């Protein structure tokens, strides 16, 4: 009696062993490091990696240990002094195409990293940093779209010689037709232009009003687009900041969370995040030799020298065909198996584009990315901030047809097309964002929080363990083993999920231990009761575990419900607590019912037992 079949014992052994292995990386602490990535946010190429490694080698930095991590090169250093020195020289040599960020990296041994194991990432409240919550003004995005419709319709009806006056009020475009007889044709034209729109006609006397509204689906699409684009913009900016492991995420309907671990100056971060970028379409001066222009510094009349993103000069016309604020949408697509970027312009942009393309068929056109940044410069011995405009050509393509409000950019591979679409969106037309929450946690406070959390956990665990041992003796000891395994499993699961551990998360672990004891108390009390009622020791163990099963399941499922609700409704710190609570409930059921039982069976099972030490 009270023997586990082999498979059950194996499950316990495997679970405990896996738990220990997965939670192992948490024991090694952190080392100062420098993270090197590309400014564009793309993964480093092999040649890029070689370059960085060479620089490190040439600087003769002692003890540097580089390894690749999520497309960035992480270089660990034995001390902060070496780290700072190395970061400075790396910045100097690598230039602006690379982002060099100071960070702390886990001291995980290479063999653990090789099998993909990492320690639990720490939340902002434990490691220090800045947290922003931005709200995207989606009503402005909708308004922009309606304005764009209004001007499109105006052009459409004008081209068809229909007299009209058009205005935008609230969420409607109102088209007044002085002659009601035009209404049928106007409606037909509008319908052809965009069949998805919600069109309604009101006739009063001799005149008619056509009301055009966006359908809920279109509004949703527009909102999603505006937010997604803002996320992209912010992510690009964060890359500029050179922060290791930043978080830029959409939260809820119209919010964006930005978390910058290790950043201590929210003002600087906000400045960069708030920078504005735009783009322009220009014709290429194809009669000029870019290298020649670069060498002499003299461009032909009406032309200007630009730098291309891939390096190398490009000479463009001074006249701008279309600016970024005339861009309505950009998306990646495929045409006959080739990657393309679909671009949509508003009517003003479309008119200009139509005229230009008509006259310049088969000529190259360039997309210029313009960014306004602020940078600190030293002037007369004082550090001041000056605005700086950065312009670069991100794409040159040949005009293959006459087009106006929508066209395609071809000649790209899939990766490039995706990035160009992102950049086009990121560069222009950001619906305004407002900061509605900001939290800054100093690094010393973060360390304090870790220390206090761990201290609370250790003392609590010590008290509980001691009491269990005194009160239930051998069974108390076994329960304590179960509790330890429980902690190991929670840490292992958190490491596996890479869910950030926060102070509320540590509180969750502490509370879970308190609640996990409950299952063991239930079992041990039940065994005592069975012994009192005259059961043999073996029967008492068996009955004790069996009878409490449904109780433990019921009790834990109700707590799990509370945990899941917390997770669903909560944000930030509450979510961290909820995750740990839910994981803890599951692991504690496993440890209380299976792990402790396996140990009990090992100790008492299959032999004659006079009395139980419970």
């Amino acid at each position, binding site marked *: 009696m009270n023997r586990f079949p082999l498979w059950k014992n194996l499950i316990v052994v495997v679970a405990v062993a896996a738990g220990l292995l997965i939670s192992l990386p948490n024991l090694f602490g952190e080392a100062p490091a420098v993270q090197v990535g590309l400014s564009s946010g793309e993964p480093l190429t092999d040649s890029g990696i070689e370059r960085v490694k060479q620089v490190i080698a040439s600087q003769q930095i002692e003890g540097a240990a580089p390894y690749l991590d999520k497309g960035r090169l992480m270089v660990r250093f034995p001390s902060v002094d070496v780290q700072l020195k190395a970061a400075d020289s790396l910045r100097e040599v690598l230039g602006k195409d690379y982002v060099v960020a100071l960070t702390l990296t886990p001291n995980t041994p290479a063999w653990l990293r090789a099998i993909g194991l990492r320690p639990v990432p720490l939340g902002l409240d434990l490691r220090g940093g800045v947290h922003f*919550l931005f*709200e995207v003004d989606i009503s402005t995005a909708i308004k922009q779209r309606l304005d764009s419709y209004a001007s499109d319709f105006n052009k459409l009806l004008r081209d068809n010689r229909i007299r009209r006056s058009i205005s935008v009020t609230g969420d409607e475009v109102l088209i007044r037709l002085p002659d009601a007889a035009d209404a049928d044709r106007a409606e037909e034209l509008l319908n052809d232009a965009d069949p998805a729109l919600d069109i309604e006609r009101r006739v009063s006397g001799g005149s008619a009003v056509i009301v055009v509204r966006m359908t809920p689906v279109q509004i949703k699409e527009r909102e999603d687009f505006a937010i997604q684009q803002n996320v992209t913009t912010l992510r690009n900016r964060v890359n500029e900041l050179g922060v290791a492991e930043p978080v830029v995420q959409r939260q809820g309907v119209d919010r964006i969370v930005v978390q910058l671990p290790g950043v201590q100056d*929210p003002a600087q971060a906000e400045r960069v995040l708030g920078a504005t970028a735009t783009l322009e379409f220009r014709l290429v001066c194809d009669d000029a030799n870019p290298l020649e222009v670069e060498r002499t510094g003299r461009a032909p009349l009406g032309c200007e020298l630009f730098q291309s993103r891939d390096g190398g000069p490009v000479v463009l016309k001074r006249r701008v065909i279309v600016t970024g604020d005339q861009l309505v949408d950009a998306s990646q697509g495929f045409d006959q198996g080739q990657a393309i970027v679909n671009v949509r312009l508003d009517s003003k942009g479309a008119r200009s584009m139509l005229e230009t393309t008509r006259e310049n068929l088969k000529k190259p056109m360039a997309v210029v990315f313009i960014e306004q940044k602020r940078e600190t410069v030293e002037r007369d011995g004082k550090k001041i901030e000056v605005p700086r405009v950065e312009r670069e050509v991100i794409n040159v393509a040949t005009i293959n047809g006459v087009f106006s409000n929508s066209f395609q950019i071809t000649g790209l591979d899939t990766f490039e097309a995706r990035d160009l679409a992102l950049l086009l969106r990121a560069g222009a037309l950001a619906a305004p964002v407002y900061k*509605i*929450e*900001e*939290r*800054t*946690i*100093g690094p*010393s*406070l973060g360390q*304090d*929080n870790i220390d*206090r*959390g761990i201290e*609370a956990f250790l*003392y*609590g*665990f010590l*008290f*509980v363990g001691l*009491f269990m041992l005194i*009160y239930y*003796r051998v069974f108390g000891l076994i329960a304590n083993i179960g509790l330890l395994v429980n902690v190991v499993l929670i840490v292992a699961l958190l490491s596996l999920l890479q869910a950030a551990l926060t*102070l*509320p998360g540590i*509180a969750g672990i*502490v*509370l879970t231990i*308190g*609640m996990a*004891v*409950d299952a063991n*108390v*239930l079992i041990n*009390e039940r065994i*005592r*009761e069975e012994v009192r009622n005259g059961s043999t020791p073996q029967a008492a163990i068996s*009955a004790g575990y069996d009878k409490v*099963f449904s*109780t433990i*399941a*019921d*009790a834990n499922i*109700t*707590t*799990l*419900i*509370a*945990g899941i*609700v*917390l997770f669903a*409704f*909560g944000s*930030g*710190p*509450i979510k961290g*607590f909820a995750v740990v*609570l839910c994981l803890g409930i599951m692991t504690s059921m496993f440890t209380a019912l299976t792990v402790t039982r396996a140990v009990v069976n090992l100790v008492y099972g299959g032999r004659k037992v006079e009395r139980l030490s419970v």
Partner: protein
Amino acid sequence: MELFNAKSNLNFLGQRRIAAVFSTILMVGSLILLIPGVRGLNFGIDFTGGVLLELGYQGPADLPDIRARLAAGNYGDAQVQNFGTASDVMIRVLPREGLDNKVVAGQIIAVLKAGDPTVELRRTEFVGPQVGEELTEQGALAMLFAMIMIMAYIMLRFQWKFALGAIAATLHDPVITLGFFALTGLTFDLSVLAAMLAIVGYSVNDTIVVFDRIRENFRKIRRGEPEEIMNISVNETLGRTIMTSFLTMLMVIAMLLFGGETLRGFASALTIGIVIGTYSSIFVASALALSLKATAADLIPPKAEKGEGEVDSMP
């Protein structure tokens, strides 16, 4: 070692009228305290919006001086308190009409730096008022939703009379804990809200254990009044109920003592919640089910009578 008399037969349900009066007084008292005009909750900036600054001074902070300086700088309404140690100070200001949070924070820091230039800014938080409104709404909604889900589960596993008993016991606990927060003026922030939901889970957990035993005893002891059987069940689970509460309490007290200021609200809420939760699962939950005339027939399906020792399968 054993602390509880295994043969205890205390007449808990016999005292249910006294318990009912006691609980009613606590509940009504808490609800009155929760009325904003009477005392109301001291909401943290998570809910109200505003600015929170945590400052570190070199030596013990001179709170009266800080308050005087803030009042002179037109921030007389700022809440100033020590945070953990004598040299750490937390300052909370409600949102200002027409003034950006950042400006407010800047002004406060400037005022305080004038008093002591060595003051170190350890943490700042700005929360927009709309975030707070949403949180209050979401928090209430989460509470309600959790209750409904738990009630549905208990109805599925037991029966509506027990579900009502469990929910009453469960409502009882956070309400009284909230009353405690209103009475003491402890800050009610996000972590306390999380603690409230943990209390809901914990309290139901406790109640379920008692109900499970009642169901088992209704099956086992075929004779006997429901009151008698329920009393036996409460007595049988008494050791466990108190042991579990005690052990969980050990962990929570460790948090209270060593967890630092940030966890204080959370740990205080749990401490009160556990005490009340233990009381309610002994005195309130079964008593209410009994008052609703719960009998053996409510829990035992007429045909599917199970043999002893057989394990209930999960639904």
